[in-house]
């Protein structure tokens, strides 16, 4: 059977902000944002956390025009999507989007809730899409949590990653409920990206 070819990807370019995250970037007319960095607004159950970090290029420079998107389960590990048979009865949508162009340090950040483990053999994590000017197609990665050591040790995805690179997927707990997750596009500490 003849299949249609997938439409090729092209770069998001430097000017995605007013199309994809107009409110974060302060555009006063036109569109509202469908998603942003404040994922836990409203009546959402779970432990409130912040995940923040910066994106570095192969020369070690901070990237100020990256777009980070995250997708996660709710505090009980359920996804707000029809393919999750358990459904999610919380008000938590699970999707966040943040550009690195508005924070003075060019951080991205997500105020969210800590996800539960979605299924056996998987530790709590967020799925991540990284894209920017200079990327012709987006990259997939994941964010795990440094205070979930035993669950991480049993995670089938982490275990498929060479041991010396696993730390690139683990957000480090800092003061309070803040986790730090830097993304290195290249270099000795290049973040693990997936063929997903």
């Amino acid at each position, binding site marked *: 059977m003849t299949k249609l070819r997938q439409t090729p990807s092209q770069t998001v370019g430097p000017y995605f902000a007013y199309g994809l995250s107009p409110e974060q970037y302060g555009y006063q*007319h036109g569109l509202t944002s469908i998603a942003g960095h404040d994922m836990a607004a409203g009546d959402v159950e779970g432990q409130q956390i912040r995940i923040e970090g910066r994106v570095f290029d*192969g020369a070690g420079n901070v990237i100020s025009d990256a777009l980070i998107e995250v997708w996660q389960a709710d505090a009980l590990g359920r996804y707000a999507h029809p393919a999750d048979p358990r459904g999610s009865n919380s008000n938590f949508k699970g999707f966040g989007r943040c550009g690195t162009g508005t924070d003075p340090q060019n951080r991205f950040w997500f105020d969210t809730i800590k996800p539960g483990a979605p299924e056996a053999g998987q530790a709590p994590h967020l799925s991540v899409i990284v894209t920017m000017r200079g990327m012709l*197609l987006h990259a997939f990665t994941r964010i795990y949590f440094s205070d979930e050591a035993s669950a991480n040790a049993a995670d089938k995805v982490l275990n498929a990653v060479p041991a010396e690179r696993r730390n690139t997927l683990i957000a480090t707990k800092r003061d309070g409920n803040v986790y730090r997750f830097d993304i290195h596009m290249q270099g000795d500490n290049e973040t693990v990206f*997936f063929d997903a």
Partner: protein
Amino acid sequence: MNDTVNPRDWAGQPAYIVPEYKSTPLRGPTKPLIPLPQTLSEVTGPVYGHEAVTGNDADLTRNGRRNGEPLGERIIVAGRVLDEDGRPLPNTLLEIWQANAGGRYIHATDQHDAPIDPNFFGGGRCVTDAEGRYQFMTIKPGAYPWPNHHNAWRPNHIHFSLFGPSFLTRLVTQMYFPGDPLLDLDPIFLATPAETRDLLVSKFSLDLTQPNYALGYRFDIVLRGRSATPMEA
């Protein structure tokens, strides 16, 4: 057996690092990608439907008006969102953004010396109907220079962003216009393998063209489909 999402068509996609596009060598991943099993985290994804679209979101000739109509050539951009088997993908959100008729983005960091149009914002979105169809009314975007190399100009284009049915079907791409002489000079367009490049070029359509009002361009979009294969345990 379960449905799994088909792999990315790597042979039809641009590479991460394309030296002619000079931002890529320091930004694209260089280590081999690690295969990721398709778990619940991958086959689910953000759900945005009709509730995400309001008012004039799909009409860029109206959603940025302040004191008059935007300048430039009105166009209709429409098409279908399909999977690789040709099945329509209903209720799929499309987000677009583009330069104005003069080739200027409203984005604060665009310093191109071309006029901002006070009545054109350049962002829009819509959701596909039951047959996977979408339609935007907008202004034909202008070409603009960029600093990639001497006398580099981007062809006229509209940025598209789609989610599709799962996290894996996400697509960010650009739609181009037929017959644009800048296409053969553009490292971003040319980074796409020759065999799939034409999929990025819209087709003029007299059927879509609205008499006495706007030319029509058709742009169909194909997202990763599904196959019946054993699901990762």
